[in-house]
């Protein structure tokens, strides 16, 4: 099974109702897979809005996930820090993490490489997935824990999973 299909299955297993997202090239097949399922998707103008919309959905009983690139999570730090975390509005985030192994673009490095540490500083739980084999289970378990503990959970997908651009080679 492709890593993309594993993620889609994990989201279905987790009974996610809504995926808020701003497109990322690496996640194209994941988005297509979700759009072929019964899960609703919402494209936002800025990732901060993806976090806010996913957080807002919780008050209706829904389970929402956010999909974005690490630069997008960096765009959304204040929404996490001043809405989702303090108001206890849970969501699952699936974040393609740039800036580490194979990265050619230095503009992706400070935020992408640093985000797991930034999440630690903010008390936001996360895991960095480097091998695709257990992705379906990881996505399911991250979502289950987010919604049962009423706290956000971020799953970072490293380039070892998603592949990487070799523009500089």
């Amino acid at each position, binding site marked *: 099974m492709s890593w993309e299909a594993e993620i889609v299955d994990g989201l279905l297993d987790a009974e996610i109702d809504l995926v808020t997202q701003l497109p990322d090239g690496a996640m194209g097949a994941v988005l297509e897979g979700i759009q072929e399922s019964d899960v609703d998707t919402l494209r936002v*103008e800025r990732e901060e809005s993806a976090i806010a919309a996913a957080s807002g*959905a919780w008050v209706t009983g829904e389970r929402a996930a956010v999909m974005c690139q690490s630069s997008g999570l960096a765009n959304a730090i204040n929404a996490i820090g001043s809405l989702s975390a303090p108001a206890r509005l849970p969501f699952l985030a699936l974040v393609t993490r740039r800036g580490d192994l194979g990265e050619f673009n230095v503009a992706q490095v400070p935020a992408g490489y640093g985000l797991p540490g930034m999440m630690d500083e903010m008390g936001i739980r996360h895991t960095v997935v480097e091998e695709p084999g257990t992705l379906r289970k990881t996505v399911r378990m991250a979502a289950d824990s987010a919604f049962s503990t009423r706290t956000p959970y971020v799953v970072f997908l490293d380039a070892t999973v998603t592949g990487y651009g070799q523009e500089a080679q």
Partner: protein
Amino acid sequence: MAADQFACTAAVIEETPDAVVVSNLGVASYVLAEVGDRERNFYLWGSMGSTTATGVGVAHGTDEQVTVLAGDGSLTMSLGVCSTVATADQSNLTVVCFDNGIYGTTGGQPTPSIDFAAAAEAQGLPAERVDSDDEFAAAYADAVARDGPSLIECTVEPTDPEARPTFDFPHIPRRVRDSLTE
């Protein structure tokens, strides 16, 4: 001319008593609390610029009316969110932008002057501009009745309310959720 933010907020509750009302941090939430605390008042204590997107998320999961009370400074911070409201195309969502011309909550510094109705329309979100209590009440009734989201830009006099929502932030969305799901 300028409308009264208390009268307009009260008109929202009177027209749509069961609505989830998502209120911008600061003055909009203080006015809402002073007009009357209710289970479905989703006061925000932070996330300037994210009030409207929070409302989009709420509107996705319920058929009840969802009304966002935004501020001009906060909407300016994320003006592109009007495109997200237009994209989501939810018939139960209304965005009110209370334009007091200032960052009221932080002491009254002037905000950039923006034609919010034009900015919303340019992003595909129908909008109307009002500057009196009566005009607001009529525009709000129209907005709720229409089959799609819209924005009302309401010019208001600055105000400095006494009331505060509970400081127990997690309690606020919990109460909204219980009211919608129990």
